[in-house]
């Protein structure tokens, strides 16, 4: 299995790693039993994501997709961030091996989870805006309900 140069670059030098102490939204998806967890922190000002950081437990693709996803939403409006698809993350990374596609899904969901948390903190029901958050796109009895 081979990763593209871009995946290796984002894996070896991940962008936006860390935490935001006074984050406006924090989202976490995945579970340790499956082998990947992504946690995303966003800072929002006037509906614009002014800062984003992540922490990821997972394989090379999980780290690279987290890194790329944060790059793609930084400075964007919340609406634009919610439009980011896993496909767009994959394309930006010059593709992923088929078994790693679920990592890009996780990255997309991590952003949605962070935005969802942002709305919740402001007393807004996020489900109408963000939709349902999927945590895991495979089925092997790990209890992640997908």
């Amino acid at each position, binding site marked *: 299995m081979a990763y593209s140069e871009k995946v290796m670059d984002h894996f*070896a030098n991940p962008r936006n790693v860390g935490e935001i102490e006074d984050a406006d939204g924090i989202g*976490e998806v995945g579970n340790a039993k*499956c*082998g990947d967890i992504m946690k995303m922190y966003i800072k929002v000002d006037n509906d614009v994501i002014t800062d984003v950081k992540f922490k990821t*437990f997972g*394989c090379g*693709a999980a780290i690279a997709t987290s890194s790329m996803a944060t790059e793609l939403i930084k400075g964007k409006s919340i609406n634009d961030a919610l439009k980011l698809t896993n496909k767009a993350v994959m394309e930006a990374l010059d593709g992923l091996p088929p078994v*790693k596609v679920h990592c890009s899904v996780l990255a997309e969901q991590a952003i949605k989870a962070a935005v969802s948390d942002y709305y919740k903190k402001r007393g807004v029901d996020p489900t109408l805006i963000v939709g349902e958050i999927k945590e895991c796109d495979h089925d092997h009895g*790990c209890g992640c309900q997908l």
Partner: protein
Amino acid sequence: MNRIYADNAATTALSPEVLQDMMPYLTTVYGNPSSMYSIGSEAQKAVELARVDVAEAINALPREIFFTSGGSESDNWAIKGVARALKAKGKNHIITSAFEHHAVLHTCDALKKEGFEITLLDVHSDGLVRPEELEAAIKDTTALVSIMYANNEIGTIQPIEELGAICRKHGVLFHTDAVQAMGNVPIDVKKQNIDLLSMTAHKLHGPKGCGALYIRQGVRPQILIDGGAQERGMRAGTENVAGIVGLASAVKRAKATMEQRTEKLTRLRNKLIDSLSKIERSRLNGDREKRLPGNINMCFEGIEGEALLLRLDLMGICASSGSACTSGSLDPSHVLLAIGLPHEIAHGSLRLSFSDETTEEDIDYIAKCVPQVVNTLRSMSPVWERIKQQEQGK
């Protein structure tokens, strides 16, 4: 950047001396061993001399050695062959263990579909099966017991002689997959009551695609590969002459250097285990002493194995892991789960396996790199963050 190859349990580099021994049979002596002319009979002679060398290495008779395409074929033949042959006698039960190689486990799955009953022995947290548990599992209908000599992931060496004695006592045939053990531990099929034994060349600096199955005289497995009369009618197909010569050469060399290599690798292994064990929340998988001299398998909590491997690769170190991502499936290694590790910890495993070519400098370099990589990955891991928070909470 120098490359440090620490994945010798996956495969080994072909030894230049072995290649030299093989060369005539890849070039000038291309005859078919079944042919009558001189380059045919020369090839046949090479195959028979190789049979003697391989037999001597495990204290078998040359006529008890059958050349195959490698470990997987040998395992398939031994298990399917014996099971199907004994089914007619009302024996339809096979005992194996939960942490066998897939060549054994999936073969047993296939036999289950044919109506065989399969018992999987527990592997304890030390990576060993218990002889008394084997004895308790044997029934009147048991046809075969198949327990690996040494595990390919955690390197633990099973109490083969005791297991063999129990099988003999109960009149049950005993097969062992010795793919990892061959050349690394002394094997004596007579003393250890082994009826069938699988081996392969490429784990001991021989070529890929050639192995052998030892079948004790008097044991009659069904034929797996039908066709010509090669291997005394037991395994069809024109002999892989160069591969067979390579297997014998590799086996002979491994046996000659075993004592000295074991001493060196055991020392280097223990030094590295001691060093890596200083990493907090790390653990060695499998018994520390009853393991292959060149095997280390450890888990580091809060990180995932594939990321660990990729970072080590960037530093020039080739290793492997039992994480789901590296197994190509969604679950981590069945071996680590079999010894009782929870999924989340099994995802963070690292296997290092060494050979004669491994140097003290390699070990020191690995000892320096692994903690760096573990720290880097932990610094970006939400799982590690949680572990630390829980620690502080206490």
